[in-house]
Every structure is written in structure tokens, then in C-alpha cells.
């Protein structure tokens, strides 16, 4: 769905820190939302922890930088990183251009998604959350 100026795909889950989660079997693909990339604007650097690193839900898993600002990325789920998007090192602007596609950040082998899910939002809930923030 589209809310205000922001794309919010229906089948993903969302965190309050504006990360998204797409579950694929035992793993999840994670990234930052359209809202996040529009707020950050002109992303010029992205770094995610290495493959094999274990991450906890809502703990720092990386950093994105725009020309003027530095922001932490918080993992929306707990687990172990199995892949990171190597393309972002060379083309961090993919985070702006295609946040739900080629701008994905990492694949994470899920530790306990049922537990994580309790603290995530559906697309509808996230849309309401964004509306509330913009007011």
C-alpha cells in the first residue's frame, strides 16, 4: 500500500525503527523502509555486521550514513547473519533507489521468529504508525 509519500508493501513486517522483514522459510531478509530512506536521503555509506555474526532483535546490526548524518540500523529480528548485500559497499544509493529490492541489507537465520513477531508491526499497523508520526 502507499501511505502519504511512502511505499509500504503488504506482506512484510515492520519495526518502529523503520526496518522491514520478509520471512523466507528459516531465514528472513531485512532492510530499511521507504520512509527511512526518504528521511535519511542521499545514502552514501552502508555497513552491516559480517556473515556469521549473531544479532539480537532491536540491537545494532549496522550503520547507514547520508552526506551529513550517521544512523544505526537495528536488527528487526534475532538470529545469525547468513548473507549481507555486498552490492551496497559499492552502491549505497540502492538503499534510496530500491529499499525493498536491491537495497536489502542482510539475510538472517531466525532464532525465534514467533517471539520477534510479537514486537513487529504488520503493513497496516506500520501505515498507522507512519501517519501518527507525520501528524
Amino acid at each position, binding site marked *: 500500500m502507499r501511505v502519504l509519500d511512502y511505499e509500504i508493501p503488504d506482506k512484510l513486517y515492520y519495526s518502529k525503527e523503520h526496518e522491514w522483514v520478509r520471512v523466507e522459510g528459516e531465514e528472513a531478509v531485512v532492510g530499511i523502509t521507504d520512509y527511512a530512506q526518504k528521511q535519511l*536521503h542521499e545514502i552514501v*555509506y552502508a555497513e552491516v555486521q559480517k556473515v556469521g555474526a549473531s544479532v539480537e532483535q532491536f540491537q545494532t546490526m549496522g550503520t547507514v550514513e547520508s*552526506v*551529513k548524518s*550517521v544512523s544505526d540500523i537495528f536488527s528487526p529480528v534475532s538470529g545469525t547473519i547468513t548473507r549481507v548485500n555486498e552490492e551496497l559497499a559499492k552502491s549505497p544509493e540502492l538503499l534510496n533507489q530500491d529499499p525493498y529490492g536491491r537495497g536489502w541489507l542482510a539475510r538472517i537465520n531466525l532464532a525465534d521468529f514467533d517471539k520477534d513477531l510479537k514486537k513487529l508491526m504488520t503493513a497496516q499497523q506500520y501505515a498507522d504508525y507512519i501517519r501518527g508520526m507525520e501528524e
Partner: protein
Amino acid sequence: MSTTLKRTHLYEFHRQTAKMTEFAGFEMPIWYKGIIPEHMAVRNSVGIFDITHMGRTLITGAESEAFLNYVTTNDVAALTPLSAHYSNMCNEQGGIKDDFVLSRLEKEKFLIVYNAANRAEDYEWLVENSKRFNVRVEDVSDNIAMFAVQGPNAQKTLQKIADSDLSKIERFKCGWTKLAGLEGFVSRTGYTGEDGFEVFVWNTPLANPVDAVKVWNAILEAGKEFGIEPCGLGARDTLRLEAGMCLYGNDIDETTTPLEAGLGFVVKLKKEVFIGKEALTKQKTEGIKRKRIGLMMLGKDIPRPQHEVWKNGEKIGNVTSGTFSPLLERGIAMAYAPVEHAVEGNKVEVKVRDKFAEAQVVKFPFYDTTKYGYARQK
């Protein structure tokens, strides 16, 4: 945003077209289209900035030259009417109170343009130190709008709406001209490293922004054929950093002296008397211990203010300004380092988060001056 923030004449334009930020008590645009395209417009063609938030004070009277020679570090006697120079005001210890551009409008009339963040303090400092001189110090900040039109096509853009020949105004000279039919003053100065002008729309109080808006719109219209971009404070900062220019509060303040900051060229120790002379003379004689340096990152990491600078496993200084350079597409920074390390080509490390990232000491400006900046080969 708090309603107590000050606004410039162009507030409505900014609000409708830019992402806004708070800066020095003003509600200002940080970017319109984006820092990178705005930055590149200035390097490659032309951009316009609203810099009305800066402080503007007129100094008039028989002893205005003597007073300014006393309160600033540069040689005001050498400034001919309709000329400008960059200068500093220091405290008695030689610490920098502010940096600014001083223009001599007439023999006994000067305009000083200083940092927005220091508006109140600078004005008080000027008034306080003017007491034993026959001068008048008048804050005209709220009655003059100020824009910077910067880039290799700045002159061509402005000429379309100016009634005097701008090609006759050389770098660091100034002059009166009608702009879009209104009374204006221009100086060939700026904070980007590029050729360009700072434009003053005279007698345009904040309460009646019509004239300021008219000139702003006329410049945008005139610059259309050159792809002019309105530029926010974001590009203003990346441009000045690439040019190696200091930002007060980051790279210079009362704990740094002009000699340490590499601004010795505006300190005229031969002058009979000026505030800070004794301390600066002593420092010059003894030699400075640390120096402002430029750092170019060798990898992809972006240095930021407060990051530590290391050499051979030892901390040697801190980054004072750091950013991603839109032109060079890598991280650049300013820092202070002991003079023995402040050598061009010296490899150091910047601690970016938990990583020691390689950097090299480089000279200012960061870019190739044959290709960019006011002295570029045409």
C-alpha cells in the same frame, strides 16, 4: 519546530521547497533537491543560498579604520573603498572570537558580516571595544537580506539582472548595483571556493520581505538557463569543507588561534596594536605546537566531528569537521594535529566507530584547483 526560531525573508519559499533544520536560532533550509545535486550545481555551474541568517553590522565614523584595526587582526588600512577582506577577531589570549568578511564601503563606512551563531556576542564585543573610539556600531542584520550566488556561472547569472558591469568587480572587490530594479550591493566573495558573489538587498526589513523575495526569484529565473539550484545549509557545509574553509564552532573557536588554524595570512603582527597581538606575537616567536590539517580518507569510511586521529598507535588529535565529499566521492575532514604530524602525505588513522580507517594529510583545498574553484583554468 519551535515557534521561537527566527525566519528569513525567504521562509515561505524554503518551507514549501526544502527540508528545514534549526541553525543558530534560525529555521533554515538544509536541502531542497539534495545536498549532492546542489553541491555539484555550484561546482559545475551556479547555485543560490539564502544567508540572511548571518550577522551584518555597519561601522561608521571618523575613527572606524582605527577601531577596526584594533578589534580585528587584518590590516584595515590596506583596505581601499569597495574592497573586502577575510579577517578574524581574537581575544587577548589570541583565541578566535569569530571569523568574517569585512568590506569597506566608503572611507569611513565598513560592513562586517559574521557568523549567525555569534551574532549577539560579536555585536556586544564590537560595541564594548568601540567605546573609546569615535565610531557608530549599528546592527543592520534585520534590514538587509543576503544571498550567495556561487559557481562558475554566477557572474553570467547575476549580470542579467544587474545594471552595472559585474566583470569590473574583481575577487574581493564590491560595488553598488541595481538588482531587478532594486537597490543592491554585491561583493565578489563566498564560502564555497568558487567564483561568485554575495548579494545584499538593502533596506528590506524582515517584516516586509517583498523586495528580498523579488531579487531571489529574479536570480533563480536568470540562472535557469544555467541550471541554477537553490542550495541549503547542507551543501554550504560540504562546499566550504572541500574548499578548506573553517566553520566557526567546529574548526576554530576561542581555544584555537589563527596561527594554529592556518589563518596566519590575516594576522598582521606589524600593526601597532590590536586585541590578541601580544599573545599571537609570542606564539609566532615560539612556534605553534599544533596545526589544522586536511585529511583525505583512503577507504570508504566517512570521518565525523570528534572522531580521533591516530598515528603509530597513539592518539594525536580530533576531527573538527568531516563529511562525504560529493565531488571527490570519499570522506574528507579537518583536524588538529601536532606540527610534526601535520605534513602533507603523512598517513594517519581516523577512528571511525570501532575501526581505524586510513587517511592521508593533504593540502587545502581538497580539490584540483586547475579544474575547480575560482582560480580554475577557464
